[in-house]
């Protein structure tokens, strides 16, 4: 499906959809509805983009600095929030030396993330709490799909010439189609960062529209590669283009840039999500990825979501961590919560 057809289908007036009930603003509490209406995208609206281009880096940095100090989670609440971090996790392996066996191990860990005594100690046996997805390169999609079959765990494939996105568009679209065909139901695509520097918004928009079309029913997460984008204004504008083009999630980083997910970048992106919501009524997910490896950091990110977007954005439908080593640190913290002993990595099963 070509991008021009999609735009035509949406038409001029179609960008303003009827909002979901009861939402004065994105960050007021709304009743949780796990069936999030999927973002159909909208026509590229440069005027709307213009209205959100004011992003003051210093002010955003001050906001995240105080935000993470002004909210504190103790005891059982902290344990509950860490469990939430696990439930909102894309357990990830994206290494050049990945093998099928390594991916199977990852899936096994996703299916059984916690030691039995921790599950019992926390009293959470009645509920399945495990990562929302595993995230792998295309060659391992089939393996992962097989490994997690029947568990409800999603399989996400990084795609479109990850991590740089610099292959021909046709190649990139074929890669998406191949992963979808192998069973991936979430596709994490990267944007060619050069389009942002060149302010080639229409080209970027068209590419993402094509990617969304190639995804079919699979959810589309658009990785901006924020570490490469230089300014928060670029992050904001690229976020907007991605959402207008139909992204289900916007995601910070590949984990391969020199700068990973940072809270100021995250703040710019969640504010983009809020602006898009206020304009269209659609809820877009957010996925920080890269470098989030400690339980404390995961709490900071969740505080950011709750404060800036609200409770709905603490569900896996709208929030994911892209992480590989975070799970182990959370396990250690949970064990400490139960026993009062500081734990060690080797006491928890590796992925």
């Amino acid at each position, binding site marked *: 499906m070509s991008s021009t057809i999609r735009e035509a289908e949406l038409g001029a007036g179609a960008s303003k959809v009827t909002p979901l009930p009861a939402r004065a603003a994105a960050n007021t509490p709304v009743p949780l509805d796990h069936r999030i209406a999927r973002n159909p995208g909208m026509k590229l609206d440069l005027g709307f983009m213009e209205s959100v281009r*004011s992003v*003051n880096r*210093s002010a*955003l940095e001050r906001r995240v600095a*105080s935000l993470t100090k002004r*909210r*504190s*989670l103790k005891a059982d609440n902290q344990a*509950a929030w860490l469990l939430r971090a696990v439930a909102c996790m894309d357990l990830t392996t994206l290494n050049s030396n990945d093998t099928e066996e390594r991916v199977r191990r990852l899936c096994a860990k996703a299916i059984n993330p916690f030691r039995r005594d921790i599950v019992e100690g926390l009293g959470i046996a009645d509920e399945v709490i495990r990562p929302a997805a595993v995230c792998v390169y295309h060659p391992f999609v089939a393996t992962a799909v097989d490994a997690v079959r029947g568990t409800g765990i999603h399989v996400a494939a990084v795609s479109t010439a990850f991590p740089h996105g610099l292959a021909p568009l046709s190649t990139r679209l074929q890669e998406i189609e191949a992963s979808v065909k192998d069973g991936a139901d979430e596709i994490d695509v990267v944007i060619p960062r050069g389009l942002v520097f060149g302010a080639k918004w229409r080209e970027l928009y068209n590419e993402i529209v094509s990617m969304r079309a190639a995804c079919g029913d699979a959810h589309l997460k658009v990785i901006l590669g924020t570490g490469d984008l230089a300014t928060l204004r670029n992050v904001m504008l690229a976020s907007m283009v991605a959402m207008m083009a139909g992204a289900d999630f916007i995601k910070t980083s590949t984990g391969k840039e020199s700068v990973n997910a940072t809270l100021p970048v995250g703040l710019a992106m969640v504010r983009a999500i809020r602006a898009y919501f206020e304009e269209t009524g659609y809820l877009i997910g957010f996925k920080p990825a890269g470098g989030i490896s400690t339980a404390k950091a995961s709490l900071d990110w*969740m505080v950011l979501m709750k404060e800036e977007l609200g409770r709905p954005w603490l569900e896996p439908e709208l929030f994911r961590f892209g992480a590989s080593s975070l799970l182990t640190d959370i396990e250690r913290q949970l064990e400490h919560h139960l026993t009062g002993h500081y734990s060690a990595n080797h006491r928890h099963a590796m992925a």
Partner: protein
Amino acid sequence: MNILDRYHAMEYGPAPEARNEADAWLAARDFGKALFIGGDWKAASGGKTFETSEPSSGKLLAKVSDANAADIDAAVSAAAKALPKWSASSGYTRAKVLYAIGRAMQRHQRLFAVLESIDNGKPIRESRDIDVPLAIRHFIHHAGWAQALDRDFPGHKGVGVVGQIIPWNFPLLMLAWKIAPALAAGCTVALKPAEFTPLTAILFAEICERAGVPKGVVNIVQGGPEAGAAIVNHPGIQKIAFTGSSEVGKIIRKATAGSGKKLSLELGGKSAFIVFEDADLDSAVEGLVDGIWFNQGQVCCAGSRLLVQEGIADALIAKVKTRMSRLRVGSPLDKNTDIGPLVDATQLDRVKGLVAEGARQGAVCWQPDAALPTSGYYHLPTLATGISPANILAQEEVFGPVLATMTFRNTEEAIELANNTRYGLAASVWSENVNLALHVAPQLKAGVVWVNGTNMFDAACGFGGYRESGFGREGGREGIFEYLAAKLPLGPVIKPAAVSAQPAEQSDGDTIDRTAKLFIGGKQVRPDGNYSLAVATAKGKLAGEVGLGSRKDIRDAVSAARACKAWPEATAYNRSQVLYYLAENLSGRAGEFAARLTELTGATPKAARDEVDQSIERLFLYAGLADKFEGRVHQPPARAVTLALHEPVGVVGIVAPDVSPLLGLISLVAPALAMGNTVVAVPSERYPLLATDLYQVIEYSDVPAGAINIVTGRTAELAAVLAKHDDVDGLWVFADADTCAKAEAESIGNLKRVWSGNGRGLDWASDEAAGDAFLRRAVEVKNVWVPYGD
């Protein structure tokens, strides 16, 4: 709730800060001996105590010694006794003490924070992350000033014994702002904390004991109004530093009038928070949270007046409301609390009363739907819209979590609204356009302007107000001057003008009769009252007659000075050239002025010629300095520059002395003009013809109309009129002691900055009667914070 319930709820839950250490500290103290005087802990000599309680519960915390006048006297004596040795100690010695205080505070940081939150009610996050670290920073920063004093402030010495009175909203931080620069400058202090919040000052005194502060250098006296009045009126004190309400500030100004005490006042505010349509609105909303809901709004520089551009008003207000509903009101010791209780029941009543009155006057007051704790002095964050500039919520300082909102149409109106207040402490400007922000910042009548930020403070940057927000700066280089005395060459005592017999006999000479009028708005005008004052020659004959200026002439002169925009807005280079030209034209008539001096004062021709030449030289000096007495760029520990701009004070009244009637007048008028002030000068009552002779020189020199206005007449009478005029921003008086004292006392209408010689003149001929000491009086230091980064 089990963990699974919490997993679904995803609430923060309580995160209490432990208070056992603080409680143990409280339990171990005898607060009946809480006066720290001369290094000893003493009970109040009158045996009285006052109670301090916990704002979150109303529970009694301690009964604290309540100092009376005798205790203040003891504290001042102790400070005076310690002064010689402390002021003579090396900068290095003082630096080590300041450093030790800072480090010792750091070691007890958490105890300070918890005590502060218990006593004041401010959220622990604020005391822990803002108040206490800033207080520590102040001491460590000022350790450096102690050592740099001789290098950076040549010709200055510490002012002596300092009396300091601080408020309850930032008890420890205000203590640090007061004590650190005083000690750096070699002063010794008697400081009185506020009755609501005595505790952290007591802990601080304990720190002083341990940090090796010599006995008597820091005296901390707890008490109420009696103790405060005793400090203000104590003759052994050379300087008063006060932070608190404008009302009390005015009382102190009046009480110290004529005493010769140096004075700095940090008073109230109604600071504007201006949001332009190209601002980062989400960040502006966070700025408001930091601006008006910081410390429950009990902040003198709180951004309590939101001015928002019409086109974005609805969007911004919606965002503000959403954000307000996320503010957490609760126990100050909960780490998740954004807003704690107000400090006291009286304060809560006051805020409620103002909100009710604002609503009665048409404000629409909105509060988020949140439950308040059942005990304690809590007030919900409040947004008032539909406000007119006349509404009490737009006019009065609420000192509570109440935001008044107005809209503006364009930049000019934004500035006008922002300046439509008696106060002038701070302002915030939000715009992503640096051209706009830096266009607006200099036009705001406020001592501190934050661009895309608010409530940023640092020890390296000056803080203080314009207008009725007080005078003096705290922090930075400009703050050190408040604790220093400049060495100025004193002149003789000035006696009140005697009403002498009017000379009748015309002095010799065959000239055409000349009428010396007043000089107002660039024109020579007759005095409103149409009376004249005879001027005698040195030999007692009639030299001529000048207009007898009256209050109405002063009124007209001030109007003309206020209306003159060309001079303050001229470039410094332009002002420089005009002053050079004045010198040039005066030089051309030097002989005539010398003859006039001789005629009137009886000076020898050589002495008269010297005075004229010196006057020309002085004009030259200030012409040259007009574009050189520049501000600074401060470097706070943040990615920001703070521009300490030198701005003209505004309309400056100058009451010139009889001694050196030409040189004295020019020594005062020239620096004021050089810095861009407009001037209303009252020249020597005895020798006014030297001033009236200047009219033509001025007229020939391209001085814009209204930049210099001269009103001749009775010094005492005209000085009093200037002092009482609320559109005069500064007043320099070199007259008899009584006139000086009255000028200071009468200045309280608008808290104009008064510089008085206290009945003494200066040795105007001395080279030291010129330069930076004068220029510093001619400027306000405005600190413009510009955070950056993209």
